[in-house]
């Protein structure tokens, strides 16, 4: 019980209060304490990636073993995982390793590493593909939102129409002052609404932090009591 509940609560309270105080103390000692905390965060995060690999391997291995629907894709995941890891270990991350250059004499130290190659020519294009879907999703979402079913929806439709027109050269061609109207909409009514939400969010963040520091909120440790 002490290790599972009391110790984590004590750690949260002590370091929570220490980091709040750190914010108000500009002394270099306070800065080095903050940097030390960041270093610890990086070290802990690095170790948790081992858990991530274990989770991925276990999940997909189970899928293959039980031959669940689409288990073939799990083979691709596991093969990709190990091939990428091997390329990183033997080929180097940012510059080719000596071993890699010995195996392939034509490789120079300035050449792209095999790991970087997979990142630049496989991962990046795949990410861009998914990102590009956003344009189509935006169009379909806009179509659903901008149907003038009520007064609010009509207001939204008209405003969106003005903002969209004002952001393209055609809008300025139709009416020269349209970009200024758009600027006003974004700067005042839109910003006012955003700030209203943001004030609430900031108060929520402070309240949640205080709850955690004081030990009132414990659900993130598992269980409610």
């Amino acid at each position, binding site marked *: 019980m002490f290790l599972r509940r009391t110790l984590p609560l004590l750690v949260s309270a002590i370091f929570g209060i220490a980091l709040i105080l750190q914010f108000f103390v500009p*002394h270099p000692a306070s800065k080095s304490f903050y940097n030390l905390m960041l270093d610890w965060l990086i070290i802990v995060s690095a170790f948790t990636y081992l858990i*991530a690999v274990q989770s991925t391997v276990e999940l997909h291995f189970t899928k293959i073993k039980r031959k669940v629907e689409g288990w073939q894709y799990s083979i691709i995941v596991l093969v990709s995982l190990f091939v990428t890891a091997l390329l990183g270990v033997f080929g180097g991350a940012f510059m080719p390793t000596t071993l890699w250059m010995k195996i392939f004499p034509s490789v120079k130290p300035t050449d792209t590493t095999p790991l970087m190659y997979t990142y630049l020519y496989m991962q990046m294009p795949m990410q861009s593909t998914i990102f590009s879907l956003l344009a189509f999703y935006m169009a379909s979402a806009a179509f*659903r939102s901008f149907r003038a079913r009520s007064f609010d929806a009509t207001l939204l439709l008209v405003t969106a129409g003005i903002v969209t027109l004002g952001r393209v050269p055609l809008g300025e061609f139709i009416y020269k002052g349209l970009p200024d109207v758009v600027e006003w909409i974004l700067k005042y009514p839109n910003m006012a609404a955003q700030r209203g939400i943001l004030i609430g969010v900031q*108060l929520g963040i402070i309240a949640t932090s205080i709850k*955690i520091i004081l030990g009132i909120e414990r*659900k*993130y440790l598992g269980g*409610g009591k």
Partner: protein
Amino acid sequence: MKNKIFFFIFIILSFIITFPQNETSKDEPVVRVDSTIVKEFQIKDVSNDDGSKLEISCQKVLEGNNSLFKLYRKELNDTVFKNVKTFQSFPVKIVDEGLSYQKKYQYYLAVSDSLGNESEKCLIGDFSPKADLFKTDKTILLLMIIIYTMVIIYLVESVRKGKDLFVRKISGLDTLDEAVGRATEMGRPVLYVPGSSSMSDIATIASLNILGPVAKKIAEYETKLIVPNRDPIVMTVAKEVVKESYSEAGRPDVYNDNDIFFLTDSQFGYAAAVSGIMTREKPATNLLLGMFWAESLIMAEAGNTTGAIQIAGTDAVTQLPFFITSCDYTIIGEELYAASAYLSREPLLLGTLKAQDYFKGFIIFIITFYFVILLISWITGGNLVFLNKILEILRFIFKS
């Protein structure tokens, strides 16, 4: 012979003429630093810093000068001079950065003419920067945090003593039960996405606080819960939260460790994988709660096409319109932080929720008060001194 004598006389004469001139240029520089300018210089410590800055200023007015002034700095026991700044006109205000509070520095001023001849360096003074122990410009903020904490503690104590608090209805959170029930009736899983951020984001902690009561309800209904994660730490915590909730519900046997898993830390890779799960597993309920960026619409739209009931919540203002468009219910901003207290109805947590509301009321009052004073000041032409003083104080508070 005559020519030779003339030649030698010429050489000797030219030597006599040029020699004293060389002597003066060696001993006396072409330009000198005006000592009255040096006396006007002031060195002072920059307040509220870590002792790495000094402010060097001179109030003397000097314009239209062709000379270039150079400010040099050296450590007290060092011989190396470093040029801090070159300037041409006065008054001047320079902030010298990258210093150490444990060292003493000497500042020198030199002047150079249009030909590039530089004068001797003239000592302005020596100074050691001071590392401050408190940011005085953040006093108001500290006071606000202390008052806010006191209000929270007071309300928590009042609730502990039995005071009843009214909490307004949040429809997005009220629907959670209905959404879980729907998944049970349809025999399909519930998908819970705890956001794309790490554990250091408060929105993620708020999301995991909601996951607890949701997992408990799911365990009671014996429905499958899928929690894909982008961060390994979040995954570890989510596993712990779900496991405890299943135990609390008395159904630890239903818990499956493989249902809470790590996907990828790539932003769009994660969005693609979650969209894939939505399409393949066809969850009846999608809960998207936490911090999201550009991937929010990809996931929400993918869920929308599968016909699942979707409840989303985030404090990212830029992503809220996407969720409002694509999801059935949206938990907006602060409601995400209120969710834990709202769902569990724990008196202590409700106390903090009330404190949040009171403080928000206070901020609204201050903003309205400022607006009214500003309006009166504008109508009266800004001639009322006491109104200007109030406005000044309020602006200082807002700035802090």
